[in-house]
Structure formats: structure tokens, C-alpha cells
């Protein structure tokens, strides 16, 4: 069976999620690999969420927010703009390719851009192949201490 990447998408309520809605209501076709989690702002996406997504088996993580300057909360997306580069560096050190994490600014009117980004990212992750983190074998969920 061919590899179908599992991708978690954290989309901001005001721009990217609405953009995804537009893509849907416009009946645009795009790859079905992204599991969308709606968040109020891309700035709400704690790096923990991204690490957890990989830990739970995601092959890629997409973050969608408003274009810089358009944040509903003024500067939430600027926090994301600063965090993602550092998170990518951390992931690289942890042996996870930078290409598995993608940050995109997609506004509510950019349904087409949403379609294009999803299709591109799915192909990008497909090319990287399954992640199969070793920790998932080394530490089955039950034994992971949360303290």
C-alpha cells in the first residue's frame, strides 16, 4: 500500500480556518491528509502541541495563521513567526526534518492558496516518507510518565 502522510493542521479561527472553509464551499478539491484542529490564533499553538502531534504519530504538522499585520489579536501571529524557526531548529536537533513542519499565512479570502498549500505540503511530506518515531516503540503510551 502506498504511504499516505498523516498531517495535523492547526488553523487559526479568523484567517486560515475561514480560508479552508472558503475552499470547501467553493468545492475546490485538495488532498484529504490534513486533520484540522481549529485554534483561536496561531499564537495559541504551544510548541508542545507540535511535539505531541509528532509523538502521537503525525508525519507532518501545518500551522496556518493570518498574514503578518492582520492578526485578530494584533500580535499573536508574530509570536508564531518567532517561535517556529526555533522550533524547527529544535526538531532538526531531534532528528525530525524541518520539512515536516510548515507555517503558512493564509487569509480568509485565500481558498485557492489553502488548496495549493495543502497539496504541496502533502507531497512534501510524502517525499520525506513516514516518520515512525523510535520513541513510539521504545515507550508505548502507557509507560510515558507525565509528571
Amino acid at each position, binding site marked *: 500500500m502506498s504511504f499516505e502522510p498523516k498531517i495535523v493542521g492547526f488553523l487559526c479561527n479568523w484567517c486560515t480556518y475561514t480560508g479552508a472553509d472558503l475552499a470547501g464551499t467553493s468545492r475546490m478539491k485538495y488532498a484529504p491528509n490534513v486533520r484540522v484542529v481549529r485554534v483561536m490564533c496561531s499564537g495559541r499553538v*504551544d*510548541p*508542545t502541541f*507540535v*511535539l*505531541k502531534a*509528532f*509523538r502521537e504519530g503525525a508525519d507532518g504538522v501545518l500551522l496556518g495563521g493570518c498574514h*503578518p499585520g492582520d492578526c485578530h489579536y494584533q500580535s499573536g501571529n*508574530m*509570536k508564531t*513567526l*518567532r*517561535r517556529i*524557526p*526555533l*522550533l524547527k*531548529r*529544535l526538531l532538526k*536537533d*531531534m*532528528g*525530525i526534518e524541518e520539512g515536516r513542519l510548515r507555517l503558512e499565512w493564509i487569509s480568509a479570502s485565500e481558498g485557492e492558496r489553502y488548496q495549493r498549500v495543502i497539496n504541496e505540503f502533502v507531497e512534501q511530506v510524502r517525499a520525506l516518507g513516514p*516518520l515512525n*518515531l*523510535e*520513541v513510539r516503540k*521504545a*515507550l508505548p503510551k502507557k*509507560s*510515558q*510518565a*507525565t*509528571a
Partner: protein
Amino acid sequence: MSQAKLKVGVYWGASCGGCDVAFLDIHEKILDVIQVAEVKFWPCAMDFKYKDVEGYPDGYLDITLFNGAIRNSENEHVARLLRKKSKLMVAFGACAHMGGIPGLANFWSKKDIFASAYLESPSTENLQKIVPQVETKVPEGTLKIPELYENVRTLAQTIDVDYTVPGCPPNPEQIAIVLGAVASGKLPAKGAVVGASDKAMCEDCPRKKKELKFKKFQRRHLTHPDPEICFMEQGIVCLGAATRAGCGWRCIGSNMPCRGCYGPLPNVTDQGAKILAAIASHIDSEDPEEVERILDGIPDPAGYFYRFGLPLSLLHRRHLGDR
């Protein structure tokens, strides 16, 4: 009739021995401790053998303070044995709690580590390329040594743990408090982190704080930080924002930034992710290229943010892929 003394076990897994020394750092209070406690196993300091422990009935020890991570089959075997023989099992110190410094081995594979230690290091001359084997045949029979594991694990990732005392090493004053709590029977809920605060280091940090903005990161060994002012405001990465207080400001007070040995705050799964968010959010730029330039000032983010906590972190180890 005097009250029966607490039977205490102390053991070290993959650790440096600093936790064992911390017991002695309580100085003359050790005299109070031996009023209420009797050591029944402490290989670092007293002459006990594993077979002594094997001979104890199950649940014989009132409390075992286990320091060190689980890195080889001996660590795991003794951890399981002590769990059976102890009423209370305490993960004592950063290594048992989070993997600690030995946990940094999770950035490498066992093969890398063996190659570096036995074959490639500049001071090694090993022409026959001998690396330790679990079993070695000699004329007299077969010799066995413990097997080094691929991953360093925390104690709680290996056995059931009742309490955790964080720190590298734990603040000596906390040891007396822990033993006192057990002696008095006033035990916290299972799973509690004992001997530390539920607040972040920053909360009561004595250094002056104004506004946090990073234009540039500095490395501690290349600077002379002002001892009165917040490290972060001086551009030095300090883990205080994502670390439990309770250590007694040992690093901060010596003009060193917090390294995070007391571990994540309550309800936090990943200490590194939290400090990453705290630091990156305060970079003073909105230009992606400038952000990258500023971030070049943190050459090893994973190693720095997971200095003590890699095995406890969400990713647990560096992913080696098919390598």
C-alpha cells in the same frame, strides 16, 4: 518502647554520585535523621550486597530513595527488585526524575556511544577494536556484565514511582523534610513532587526585571553578567521560566543562569517546549531573516532546553531514522 526506625534504602542507577553526597550535605542534621531512620541498603556508602536485599521480605523497606536514570540491565534489575521490597519508591534527583545528564545520551545511538568511547576518542588506542560484550568466554567460564540500553529512561518510565524529589542534586534541606514526612506518616498524594515549589523559578527570583526583549543572545562563558539583573534581559538563556523553584537559588546566586534541573512545572509535559515558547516569543523583531540571525545565538537549542530532561520529554530521544 521506642518507635521502630524507618528502614531506608538508597540506590544509584545511572548517576554521578552527587545525590548520595547530597545526603551528607545535611551535615549534623544527619544525626537527627539516624534517630528516625536506619539504612538498610546504600551501596555508595555502606557495605551491602544485592543478595542482602533479595533476602528481605517484600515491602520490608519503608522507603527507597532511588537516584540515577535507568540505562542498563543492572539499573533496571535493581529498580524492580527495590520496588518489590519497598513500601514507598522515591525518584530522587534529576536523573531518576527526568533522565538527567546521562539522559543526554539519547541524542546518540548506542553504536555511536560505543564507537566514541572505545574506538574513536583521541586518547584511545584500541588496535584490536575491542568493545565490551555482555558475555565473554574465558577459560574459567563465561563472564557477564550488564547490557547498556539503546535509550536512557526515567525511573517512572520503568517502575511504579510514588514520589519525586527533583534537583541536581536535590537541595539537602529537602531530604530531611521528605524523611520527616514519612516518619510522621503525613504523606502527600501518590505521584506528588516533593521538596520543591509549584511555582516557576522566575516567580521569586531576586534579580531585577523590567522588560524582556531579545536583540541578541549571549553565551554565559563569554560574558560578565550583572549579578543584579535578570539573565534573560542580558540576553543569556535561563531556564527559570520553565523550571520549578525550590533549589535555593544555587545557580542564580552564583551568577549562573538556571539550567532547569528541577524540571517542568505542574501540568507541563515538556519543559523544553515551554522554554522555547517563552524565549522565542520575546525576540525583538518581526522580520523572519533577522529572527533567524538572532536565533543563531543559540547554537544547540535541544541540548540546552533538554539539558536534564531529554528522556522525560515528549520525543524522549533524538530520532535516528534508518541510520
